[in-house]
Structures are given as C-alpha cells and as structure tokens.
C-alpha cells in the first residue's frame, strides 16, 4: 500500500507516493526521475548508487526512502554548479577516470564527501574514502589522480 510523504533532494522538496518498503535508489530514479544515481549490484557492494544523506555517503540501494524524510539528500545532479561541471567531474574526464561511466556518479559522491571532510587527503585516505566504490574499467589509478588533482586545485 502506498503512503504519501516528502523528500528533500538537492534542495528541492518532492512529494512522494510510494510503498514504504521502496529503497531510496528506486524512488530517486523512478518517482523523482533523477537517473544520475545508478543501480549496480543492488546489494550494497558496488557503490554505484552512492548518494549523500546529510553530507555523508550512503548506499541508496540499502536505505529505505521513507527513512530519508527530514534529511537532506544529495545526488550527482545536485553538485553541478549551474551549467558548469563540478571540479571532480571535470578532472575525472581530463585525467581519463571515466570509461564506461557507470561507477562515476557514485565515485563523485564518495570523493565529494571525502574532500568536504578532509580537503587535503593522502593517497591512502583517498583509497579508503573510495573503498566502497567499484570500477571495472579504469584500474582506479586515474580516478585517484582526479581526486588528488581536485584537492590540489582547491
């Protein structure tokens, strides 16, 4: 049975009418229409579904949407600066950290949370910060380089 509640995503309040057992990932994608957040494993392993809840990275596949009521949800769509790419997005492109691109939104959300908390992370800290995100294309080195470059530029 559907219930009605409200979610705040990227600063916008959306009315939701959905069953209470729906996860945040499916509500973001199919109810709100924000498809930047990806469904990879749907099993809390791969990190493609990573969003920020109150600034903290969380796997949206394993978080009930209704539990996000009253909290601030940020998706990859929310980090754009108008029409300009976020520095993490630009550096991932320029460093070759994007190949198929499926892991990229989740990588960006984990990296963004890391850099907000720790603006000058060591390489080891970046590896730990991204340790919940899998990439099958790049071999990770170029993603690390993009995060390091973003930190160095800010």
């Amino acid at each position, binding site marked *: 049975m559907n219930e009605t509640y409200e979610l705040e995503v990227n600063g916008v309040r959306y009315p939701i009418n959905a069953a*209470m057992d729906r996860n945040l990932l499916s509500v973001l994608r199919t109810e709100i229409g924000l498809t930047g957040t990806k469904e990879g494993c749907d*099993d*809390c392993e791969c990190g493609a579904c990573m969003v920020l809840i109150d600034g903290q990275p*969380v*796997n949206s596949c394993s978080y009930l949407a209704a539990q996000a009521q*009253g909290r601030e949800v940020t998706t990859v769509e929310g980090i754009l600066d108008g029409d300009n790419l976020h520095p993490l997005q630009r550096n991932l492109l320029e460093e070759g950290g994007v190949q198929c691109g499926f892991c990229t939104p989740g990588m960006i959300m984990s990296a963004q949370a*890391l850099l907000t908390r720790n603006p000058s992370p060591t390489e080891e800290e970046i590896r730990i910060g991204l340790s*919940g995100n899998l990439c099958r294309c790049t071999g990770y080195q170029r993603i690390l380089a993009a995060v390091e470059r973003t930190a160095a530029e800010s």
Partner: protein
Amino acid sequence: MSLTIANSLDEILTSLAAGARPIAGGTDLVVGARQGKAPLPDSLVAIDRVTALSKIETVNGQVRIGAGVTHSRLMNDPMIVERYPGLADAAALIGSPSTRNVGTIGGNVMNGSPAMDTGAPLVTLGAVVELHSVGSTRQVALSDLWTGPGRTSANPDELCVYIIIPHPPARSGSAYVRLEYRRAMEIAVVGAGASVVLAEDGSIVSGRVAMTSVAPTIVELANASDAMVGLSPVEAATVIGAMASDQAVPISDLRGSDRYRRHTIGVMAARALDAAARRAGGEPIGVPVNRSLGIGAAR
C-alpha cells in the same frame, strides 16, 4: 509494510510491544530482504533519530555506548580509540565508509552473525548489553545473548539500548584482527580479538581472546587467561594460537574451508594477542591493526 519514525525511546518500545521490528541503518535488514534471507517485517520502527541511542557516556567506571552509535563514530572517537582500541579496530573494518556511516554497533551485535566484527573485541573487553522493553530493563552478558547464527536470547519486544564496557585496567591493551581477501566490503574469513593486562616486567597478568567466524556464534577462547598468565606476550601468542585452532569448530563455505579456517584462526589469534600486548606496553599501533601491521589483503 508500515514504517514509523520514532522520536523517543518510549515510542520505540511501544512500537516493539505492538509487534514492530527496529531498523537503524538498514545495512543488514534491507540487503537481507533483497537477498531473500528474510522479507522485510510488516511493521518497522526507525530508531535512528532517537538521540538517547547515539550517546557515548562514561558513568561509574564504565562506558555506555548507545546502540545507535555508528561504526564511523566508534572508529573516530578519541576515548574509544584510546581505551578500547580493539573495538575501534573492528568498527574500522566493517563494510565501507558508507556502511559505517549508517551501520550501528547495536545492529551489529543484535544481528547475531557469527562473522560480526564488533563481537569478538566486545567479548574480550567484558561488555554486556542492556535490553529495554516497556516497563523492564535487564543486562545480558554477550555469552548469554548469542544463541546461534542470527539468533539472540532477546525477546521480540526488547531493544538493545546500551552496550556497556568496564574501564580497562592500567597496562592493558586490546586489538582485533581479521583475515580478509580484500580491504573493503569484506566479511571475516576468520577474525580474533584479544585483550591483555601486563605486569611491570612485561609478562601477562591476565587476558581474554574471542574468535569470529569459527563457530555458530562469536565464541570466547576457553581457559585463555590461565594459559597465558606469567608468560611473555611472544610465548603466549604461540600458546594461544594453538589453543584457538584446537577450539575452533568452523564450517566450510565460499569464504574458506573448515581446515583453512582452523589453521588461520590460530594465526589471527596470535596476531591479535601480539598487537594487544604491544598496545598494553605503550606502543602506538594505529586503528585498524589490519592496516597498520599489513595483516589481511595486500593493497
């Protein structure tokens, strides 16, 4: 399915009495439902906004850790890292940053997995849980709490509200190590926690060891303290390693065979004891021990 977002402990307990099940971060419950382990309960009460559950307080020679304290907080809390480094080691190994941000110590303990990481260090630190229901409160030793894989002796209307740990004595240390195949999103192949108290000459006065993923529940190594007393940490590590392999009753599954687990639990128990003793002697070993000492998966 219904979900109530509780704002007070009373509200949670009333919901539980009416048949609801608690959900905090959902990292076990929601994933388990999709994997087909158990469907989501018909009635859930979200307990993650009740501030009474998210405190770490020092009272009367004990620390009371709210069941809703996340693994991220545990691994970064200076008092936990200083006094209970074995628990911080375990919290730092769980899942990934996102799992640790929403996953809680209460959820880890009450989920009752024989592979839970916080269980072994909590046993070696002498922790008890405090269970609340409407009109009733009781404390339960961990050895009486876990009754089998995914099972506890708590009643359905009881909520774990605190994990209570006594202050450690002087010249003591603790550690938790885990055999893992990768650095993140991993479940213990086997794991071991240890706590020791050293005499001024560096020999062992007393100690406890507990084991992960080698029995239907987290289990404490029997007769460990007697076997260690008076020995140097190096001598004790050999003895404890052999005892751990002897007492383990592991199963074979996709993470390892019973023979492999029986061998490696001895290695992990010896390393946990070594790290705990070095910390007791004042050596600063960063959290988690796995990363500081290069145990487990290579980078």
